[in-house]
């Protein structure tokens, strides 16, 4: 299901491990992080590549986790 040629930022991403904690949350990894092309749509990836701050609560779709 997952592709190893996904996002190169996985190792440093604060949210990626959290997405592994519950089955339903892994949909983020599947739809963004592990996809060879779709990870480029991730707002965290885009901001990081632009040298902008990436808040830990920022979801790949650009929404914030309501903490």
């Amino acid at each position: 299901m997952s592709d190893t040629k996904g996002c190169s930022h996985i190792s440093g991403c604060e949210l990626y491990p959290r997405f592994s904690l519950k089955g339903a949350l892994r949909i983020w990894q599947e739809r963004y992080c592990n996809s060879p092309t779709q990870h480029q749509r991730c707002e965290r990836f885009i901001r990081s590549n632009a040298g902008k701050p990436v808040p830990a609560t920022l979801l790949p779709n650009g929404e914030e986790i309501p903490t």
Partner: protein
Amino acid sequence: MPSWVFHDYWPWWLGAIFFGGFVVGIWLLERRLLGVSGSYAAAIELTRQEDEAARRLDEADPQALDEALLRATLEAFGPEAVAEFEKEMAATPSDTAAVAAPRKLLPRSVHVTFLVMLAVGGAIGALAQGTWQLRFDLGVVHEALTGGGVTSLLVLGFGGVLVGLGTRMAGGCTSGHGLSGCSRLVPTSLVSTGTFFGTAIATSFLLEVLAR
């Protein structure tokens, strides 16, 4: 120290072993990437926005955080897509389960200690080499170009500001991009490192010529 270890500088391979060992070690032990400018920014709280968000995550009730994440997931993909995905997950073993636990935010004292120890390590290296001394200049070329004195300090300060701005704009420095990024073949790190090292080499040659 034996003469084959130290000449004017440490031999390149010894430095490479230390740097590489540290980058790999910090990853194996802490699952963190080396980044000196990141530590510097954290030490002076330039990364307050990121830190506050990370702190909120760290301090959030785990169950409430789970629920919030699940709500956000359902909103993002829709209940049907999530249910369908869960069915697929149940039918197909996934290799994403074996990942490290979420990282905890490092306190500022850790970053400060790291930065102080960089200077201490450099001093120990110079002491071991027998070359440690207090210096108030940047060498012959810098003095020849700036004329020394206040001008020299102003040029030095201006250069420092440019380096700081460039590092923030590039999202990293020689350690973050050069070591952690290039070793993972991150495209932006490859471009950044090529740019700042290329520019540094060209500038060094230019200054050498101008100083003659």
